[in-house]
């Protein structure tokens, strides 16, 4: 009769045996198996009575075990304390039933009794307790999860040595109103001239075609300056970082790889001399492996790194402003000092290289500010919203507790008639709320860690420092504070209410005391408060949704349905000149168009709605600018003839590009409506000629003849 069944309810049994860990080890040793056996038997009996009974019994036991287990641990502590006190001869404090020891301070025993009573009362109404714990767990857990995001992204320092000394250095245009990345020329000059910086390094995203495996693969990595790891005070896991000699365009081709890439593609081979990668058609030696979890600030983890070339023979050295530069300030140098020093260096450079650096200044931004900019408002807003949700939940639960307080009034009144002190009643109600709050908080930790996992899954990919979001010590502290605070908040009002009741009133009424004036007012206040907060939240989210919808509705100027975009980069080694690139594109589109289901295909440099890849000075034949500063800069793109058709872009005037506009045909160009508005307001755009470069009179002798003129043949919609 007493044999426990083999399989039913085994999940509960396993849960029970895990929760036994709440008990101290000595207790488990003595009573553990007996407890498990008794639980199994009673569970089976409950199951025979019905599934609901079994669940209810299971829940009750879970509460018992967790609570009593903790009490048992506390008791062990108390007994230890009073035993040692007795040994010291001071005698142990009087533990009178009313629970006040010397000077009216509640003794540990009394607190334990309160807790035990609270547990008993809560366990007697498992549905109320279950709902409350669920609500609290969700509320506190959500708050902790959002807080972990706020803390990791906004509050905690960057995960580098002395992170406050890390800064980003930008070029500025037009007297400092816009910042932009740096040209390699300026990186070289800034790096060499400044004593305010211990080190400076540049980073540039770079596409690689990884070949040599069965399937060629396109990997997006970065080019980095030598010394970047030393700047960040990070040591490579294996090998070394790049050296200065590898910076020139003709340095020996080397590369570094990330930890993940090293493990998955190179089998974690520590013998780097034997490792090579064929990147963009050139064999690179692998010289270093980055440590696990490392990411360059502001960039995600990059699988492949190559040296950032600083070679004056490369035309891009002078005019491609695409390097992100950051540096480490020297000791005792402030941001302002370094900023001014860099600005004066930039001024010198403006004079030294007028055709490249005209109008270019410098500005420093602290690394952390740079990385998290734009997210602060959203994250704090999110936290505020979640806190409000928790407050609503608390208000709800406080009402529930109030009702419980009313129901328990008779019990309280009887206790008071029997001599319990008023203070004790308040403590009882408070302890019930605290127990709820703390248990809710513990469960909330579980929800929080689920939430953090969800954040990693669903957060926007450009949320900075996403990898650092985790349940850390500050998050745990926040959760503790939230659960204690919630418990106190929940307990205060019902506690005060119930303490004000005089037992004569209640007993005289002889039955349930339904809402007296005091009670209804508190409940009405709760309802009003909750509705107000709920309205605020609803309005806020409604506005956000509407803004988002408006964004989606904006006409981008081309069709988005049924289109797919691919990125291809052609390694210079295999495609060194124009003919080979053109031939490749012809073959590519032949192949693409032949795929069944493909209606059209086209290629272009850059995608619409993305930052422009190519910016050039532009001169109109009719309106050449007078000074170099006035020469407008335009975004340029080149494309195959069917590109616009593939996109579904509108041609507003004139024609689109044709197959006949190849290298033997006339040089033609298309402009968009904004271009017409900005530069050709009063003229008919068709037939105008433009070139990519400065006007003749601003160029050196003879240079103007080499720059071709294009004729505008069509206008495209924005």
């Amino acid at each position, binding site marked *: 009769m*007493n044999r*426990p069944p083999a399989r039913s309810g085994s999940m509960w049994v396993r849960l029970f045996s895990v929760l036994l860990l709440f008990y101290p080890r000595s207790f488990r040793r003595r*009573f553990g198996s*007996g*407890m498990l*056996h008794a*639980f199994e*038997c009673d569970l089976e009996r409950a199951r025979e009575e019905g599934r609901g009974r079994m669940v209810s019994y299971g829940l009750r*036991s879970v509460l018992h*075990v967790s609570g009593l287990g903790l009490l048992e641990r506390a008791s062990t502590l108390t007994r230890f304390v009073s035993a040692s006190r007795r040994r010291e001869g001071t005698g142990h404090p009087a533990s009178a039933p009313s629970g006040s020891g010397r000077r009216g301070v509640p003794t540990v025993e009394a607190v334990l009794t309160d807790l035990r009573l609270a547990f008993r009362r809560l366990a007697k109404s498992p549905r109320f307790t279950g709902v409350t714990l669920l609500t609290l767990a969700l509320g506190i857990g959500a708050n902790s999860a959002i807080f972990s995001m706020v803390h990791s992204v906004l509050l905690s320092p960057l995960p580098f040595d002395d992170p406050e000394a890390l800064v980003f250095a930008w070029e500025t245009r037009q007297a400092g109103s816009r910042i932009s990345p740096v040209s390699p020329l300026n990186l070289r000059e800034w790096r060499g001239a400044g004593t305010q910086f211990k080190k400076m390094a540049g980073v540039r995203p770079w596409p690689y075609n990884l070949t040599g495996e069965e399937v060629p693969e396109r990997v997006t990595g970065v080019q980095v300056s030598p010394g970047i790891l030393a700047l960040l005070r990070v040591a490579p896991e294996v090998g070394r970082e790049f050296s200065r000699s590898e910076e020139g365009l003709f340095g020996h081709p080397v590369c570094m790889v990330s930890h993940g890439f090293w493990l998955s593609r190179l089998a974690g081979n520590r013998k780097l001399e034997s490792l090579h990668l064929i990147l963009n058609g050139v064999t690179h030696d692998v010289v270093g492996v980055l440590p696990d979890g490392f990411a360059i600030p502001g960039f995600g983890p990059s699988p492949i790194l190559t040296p950032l070339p600083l070679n004056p023979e490369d035309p891009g050295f002078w005019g491609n402003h695409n390097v992100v530069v950051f540096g480490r300030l020297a000791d005792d140098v402030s941001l302002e000092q370094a900023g001014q020093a860099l600005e004066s260096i930039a001024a010198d450079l403006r004079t030294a290289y007028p055709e490249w650096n005209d109008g270019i200044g410098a500005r420093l931004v602290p690394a952390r500010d740079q990385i998290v900019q734009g997210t602060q408002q959203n994250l704090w807003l999110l936290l505020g919203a979640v806190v409000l949700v928790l407050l609503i939940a608390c208000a709800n639960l406080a009402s529930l507790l109030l009702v419980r307080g009313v129901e328990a009034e008779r019990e309280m009144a009887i206790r008071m008639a029997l001599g319990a002190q008023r203070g004790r009643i308040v403590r009882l109600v408070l302890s019930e709320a605290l127990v709820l709050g703390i248990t809710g908080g513990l469960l909330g930790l579980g929800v929080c860690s689920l939430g953090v996992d969800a954040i990693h899954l669903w957060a926007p990919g450009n949320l900075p420092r996403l990898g650092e979001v985790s349940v850390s010590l500050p998050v745990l502290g926040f959760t503790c504070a939230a659960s204690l605070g919630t418990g106190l908040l929940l307990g205060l009002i019902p506690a005060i209410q119930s303490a004000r009741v005089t037992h004569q009133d209640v007993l005289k009424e002889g039955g349930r005391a339904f809402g007296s004036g005091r009670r209804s007012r508190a409940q009405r206040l709760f309802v009003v408060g909750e509705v107000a907060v709920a309205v605020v939240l609803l309005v806020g989210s409604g506005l956000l949704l509407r803004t988002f919808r408006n964004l989606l509705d904006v006409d981008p100027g081309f069709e988005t349905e049924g289109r797919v975009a691919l990125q291809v980069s052609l390694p210079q080694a295999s495609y060194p000149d124009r003919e080979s690139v053109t031939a490749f594109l012809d073959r590519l589109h032949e192949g693409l168009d032949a795929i069944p289901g493909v209606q059209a295909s086209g290629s272009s440099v850059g995608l619409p709605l993305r930052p422009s890849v190519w910016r050039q000075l532009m001169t109109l034949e009719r309106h050449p600018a007078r000074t170099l500063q006035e020469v407008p800069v335009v975004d340029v793109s080149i494309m195959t003839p069917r590109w616009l058709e593939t996109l579904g872009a509108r041609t507003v005037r004139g024609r689109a590009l044709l197959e006949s506009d190849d290298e033997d045909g006339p040089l033609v160009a298309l402009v968009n409506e904004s271009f017409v508005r900005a530069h050709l307001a009063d003229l008919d755009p068709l037939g105008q000629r433009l070139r990519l470069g400065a006007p003749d009179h601003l160029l050196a002798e003879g240079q103007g003849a080499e720059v071709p003129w294009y004729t505008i043949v069509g206008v495209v919609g924005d």
Partner: protein
Amino acid sequence: MPANQPGAEGRYLPLKPVVFHILLALAEGDAHGYGVIQSVRTHTSSRIHLETGPFYRHLRKLMDRGWVEESADRPAEDDPRRGAYYRLTPLGLEVLMAESRRMAEVVSLTTEMGLVAGEGTG
């Protein structure tokens, strides 16, 4: 914990009903944990529905006071998963008897007053 002294009675009596019934169940004979729980439920016709957690807390206290101890006696073919067997110590037995005496005194008083039969006082 010296409970043989006369003052001890005032300290531990009256026993909580649950504790009394646990001692009573053990007085019937050595039993394992669940067995005691079931006895208590039977004796009180489930008016005291003793559950696992609270029972073992009481048991621990009783053992701390020296009223109950583990028993080496168990049936040979018994399932070891049941846990240990327990029995009353002589001290525990004395406490049980003291409480029974006290209750008997109360019952005789109330019987005299006619409360037991349900007549109420004059």
